[in-house]
């Protein structure tokens, strides 16, 4: 899967100002909305929060994958955000999440959604990659490290 077709450096937030789970999701949705990728930001927020209610998307090793499906997007959209101090995201290992990958896909249309998340997860299995991403100085660098 070619991530660069879905992600650009504009979809990356180097340092989130949010300090709670809800704030992280809202800030990331806002970023995508400002870039015109989401039409109805409340609907997008609701879809992601609904999914979080079922089970937290916080995985392990500081990675969280908030995602959802809704009519607020026309195609798969994604964003990456970093919070060096970490945010309590209900991760499986109890550790705070530092790298957030958000995905939103149209509700009733087929196309890669989980496949995108799986690809990112596969890449972030690499400890060195995770550390380099957190140390990156620019959005372009984050993208380069992730896709390399």
């Amino acid at each position: 899967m070619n991530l660069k077709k879905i992600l650009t450096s504009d979809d990356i937030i180097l340092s989130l100002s949010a300090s709670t789970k809800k704030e992280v999701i809202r800030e990331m949705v806002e970023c995508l909305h400002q870039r015109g990728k989401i039409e109805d930001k409340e609907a997008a927020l609701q879809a992601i929060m609904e999914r979080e209610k079922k089970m937290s998307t916080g995985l392990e090793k500081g990675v969280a994958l908030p995602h959802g499906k809704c009519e607020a997007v026309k195609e798969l959209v994604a964003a990456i955000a970093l919070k060096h101090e970490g945010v309590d995201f209900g991760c499986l290992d109890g550790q705070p999440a530092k790298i957030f990958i958000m995905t939103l896909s149209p509700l009733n249309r087929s196309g890669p959604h989980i496949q995108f998340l799986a690809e990112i997860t596969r890449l972030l299995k690499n400890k060195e990659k995770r550390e380099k991403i957190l140390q990156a100085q620019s959005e372009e660098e984050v993208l380069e490290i992730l896709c390399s």
Partner: protein
Amino acid sequence: MNLSPHFYQKRWLIFFLVFVFVGLNTLLAQEAKFEMGHKMTLLVIQLAIIVIAARFIGLLFSQLLHQPRVLGELVAGMVIGPYALGAISLPFLNGPLFPKGPGFLPVSPELYGLAVVASIVLLFMSGLETDLPTFLRFSVVGSVVGLGGVVLSFFLGTLIAVLLLPGVNSFLSPAALFLGALSTATSVGITARILNERRKMSSPEGVTILAGAVLDDVLGIVILAIVVGISRVQIGGSEVEWGHIGTIALKAFGFWVIATALGILSANRLTRGLKRLRSQDAIAGVALGLALFVAGLAEVAGLAMIIGAYIMGLSLSQTDIASELRNRIHGVYNFLVPVFFCVMGMMVNFAAMKRILVFGVIYALLAIIGKVVGCGLPAYLMGFNWRGAFRVGAGMLPRGEVTLIIAGVGLSAGAIGSDLFGVAIVTLLIASLIAPSLLVKSFEGGSGLRKETLLKKEEAGCRIKLEFPSFHIASFIRNRIIEAFENEEFFVHRLNIDGMIYHIKKEDVFITLHQKEGMIELSASEDNRALVSLIVMEEILALKDLFEAVQKVKKPEMVCEELASGLLSDEEEKFN
């Protein structure tokens, strides 16, 4: 103006000639129309009898005799063909149902044409079903085994022709070459079925046989191209020189390598183009059309058509549309392929075979030895013990479609007569009948390996096992998981064998889903663990939602009571 009587005579003559010409032309046209109509009627009735007989005798073989259906279809052809019942004159047809065709072929060109189209579909499907990754993974040991079998079988086939056949005194004579080529190909279908039943498909012997059989088919097809080339030169009356053979071999091998490489390299681009059609039927139709086109191109290049069809299938075999193509083409395949086997059976001339009965027996015996020793010995050298080597040799015994196609091409080119064609078919029948029992028996006993060898067990990858309290719940979840993969634009294909095994494919991602009663198991490479885990996780979460939603609606008993009440109320009550 006075005109001479000579002129009137001439004018009368011209008038007469024009009249005769127009009359004859009309008559001939009507005759041709009648001839064409008669040919088509005959073809349709022939096809009807072939389709019905092949089905019935095929079923008889598979269900009562527990033998492969193709053998039944071949026997059906022998029974209804022009050398048996088909020769009986039928009053409503003013002749026999299967009159002998012109040239070297005992069937009509129209019927043979249909068999050729069927062989293209058959080889296209074989190419699509080729397990290229398994072949590549076990290519070293598979190649050595396959090559050993091909070389020894070819050598023994040509040797016996030179030693025993009258008029054949050179290894390069068309008959010798064809008899050699006929011994080479292996049909893995029968072996695969047995290995699958015995759960030995992924055993070292199993993967060696599968990889070896792929190479055998490829080499068989390439050898056919070379043999056809040499035979054409010889039948044309020219002498064949070694340089010429080299050119033909190079051309055949070159076409094979370049076309296959081009095919595999451009397969993904082609697939993307085909997907734009946005209709699975249209994709399958165009792909089949391309297979016919490439088959035609191969023939134009001086090679056999099946090479083109096989290459096209092989190229698409690793794409994510391969399983969908197989599904869509299955209908055409099911109709045409029995016609092919039946027509091939029709060409067996028992009377002609009597003349070379001894030769036939020796040829069949050597064909079996050629494979068992030719494949078994290299298998032993590659680290199997004698038991394992025998298993590999026995697994390579069955002959199938490639052998038949080679025989058909040889017969139509006049390189072999109907007597040798019969010998080839009977050898195929004997080898395919012996192989299953030999293979089953050979797998009794312990390991077939002598020592640690080049053979490595298949990589385990990741396995995700889910246990559910009942078969119905597991089936429900299975369907949800399949739907989730389809929503992610994966192609899901249920394997046409007993049990619920699904292949889930997209580009280079390959996942297997297997349900056994209340258990679902998903296998994938380690790289795809996250994908499988996340999809299954999302579906289980969705299911939790679903159950909660059902509980919120009403008590199930109340819903059932509502549905059941009033089922027995009579009409009056309804209207009141």
